[in-house]
């Protein structure tokens, strides 16, 4: 791939003068984040309020759901500013959700697993935008990051509670065993053309494989902290 002249786009207004490939890459990322944040709130966070074991956990989950929905709104607003039609930033029948959202949430332990591991995966995705060449997207990532970190901490805090009893620990480990296999694919294919373009324009920094490897290390670390483990992961050939 040919090297692109590095550019920095500081405002939404400047984006219209950026190369088409840059504009399309930014749009793809904004759409992806807007949809994923909404899916997360709708299929995991809102239903988890009913599963939460105490009023404290229920209200905290309610707040987390609102924050995730707020992330969707922020990405959607940025999308509208750069001319993406609203319909493209909403889940639809024609857009298949990522596999991580196809997991049928049934228990509190599953939700804790999702916060512990899926939100860690989300942190990595947002981290990669913290130096994005399109500054409005970089700024949005910076605004979102503290709440994303809190959501992963939520997963850790409730994991710490659950592992206090052997039964709770076994239920949590079982949830990890069933949910974790969905996660590595969240980072995209090894030979992703989109990722190549993102990196070419300094919109993102790392390859999908680098991020996946980093995620696996961090996920192993955080689960080990609570005496838990990840199931065997077979890397795609």
């Amino acid at each position, binding site marked *: 791939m040919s090297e692109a002249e590095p550019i920095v786009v500081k405002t939404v207004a400047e984006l219209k003068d950026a190369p088409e490939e840059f504009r399309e890459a930014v749009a793809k990322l904004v759409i992806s984040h807007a949809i994923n944040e909404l899916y997360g709130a709708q299929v995991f966070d809102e239903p988890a309020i*009913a599963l939460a074991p*105490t*009023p*404290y*956990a*229920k*209200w*905290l*989950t*309610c*707040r*987390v759901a*609102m*924050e995730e*929905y*707020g992330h969707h*709104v922020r990405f959607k607003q940025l999308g509208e500013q750069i001319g993406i039609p609203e319909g493209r930033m909403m889940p639809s029948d024609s857009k298949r959700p990522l596999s991580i959202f196809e997991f049928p949430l049934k228990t509190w332990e599953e939700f804790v697993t999702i916060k512990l591991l899926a939100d860690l995966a989300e942190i990595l995705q947002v981290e990669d935008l913290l130096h994005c060449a399109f500054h409005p997207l970089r700024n949005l990532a910076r605004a979102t990051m503290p709440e994303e970190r*809190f959501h992963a901490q*939520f997963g850790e*805090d409730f994991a710490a509670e659950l592992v206090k009893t052997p039964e709770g620990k076994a239920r949590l480990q079982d949830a990890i065993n069933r949910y974790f296999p969905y996660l590595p694919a969240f980072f995209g294919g090894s030979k992703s053309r989109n990722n190549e373009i993102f990196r070419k324009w300094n919109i993102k920094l790392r390859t999908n494989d680098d991020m996946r490897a980093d995620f696996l290390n961090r996920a192993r670390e955080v689960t080990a902290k609570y005496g838990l483990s990840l199931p065997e992961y077979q890397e795609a050939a």
Partner: protein
Amino acid sequence: MTSPAPSPDDVGDAIAAASWFAAVGEPWTAADQSEAESYTHALQLGMLRIAIAHDWHDAARITQDPGWSRTWWDIEEHQRQDLTLAAERQVGRHALMTALSAVMAAAGDLVHGKAALAAARAGIADPTLTRVAAGAAAMACHQLALSTIAQASESHPFRIKFRLFAAGRWPLCAVGDAMYVF
């Protein structure tokens, strides 16, 4: 003479005007007692005494008590579902969801900020607990919006619960023979 039915705009005004968490930890008043009793009666929870959480640590402990009343939560959930159906009949599902989303978008950061401020004034720097408080307040806003759109009476438990929040209190939960309010 009957007063005109409140509109979703009234909900926004009520949320903006509420004294969110301003009276938590302050001395309990006869008016607070009366409102809290009305809330438990409206939920038909039987004979519950009103008990007070004295500080934020107390509130955190009470809301994590394993003996909390699931009946209380379930009754509120049933009320919420009934109101949702009634509100959908009044304005249609799409309009209801749009109105509720607008209320929650406006309320979310406001109540979180108020909770964080009140906790900070009490010397509490606990981002989790302030989010718990904000979640409870946001849920009360949602319930107020539903009860308003469904044109529920002023004696509906969600209206009374919101009045407790508006008065700066935080209605917590039922544990054993008591309904706790902060």
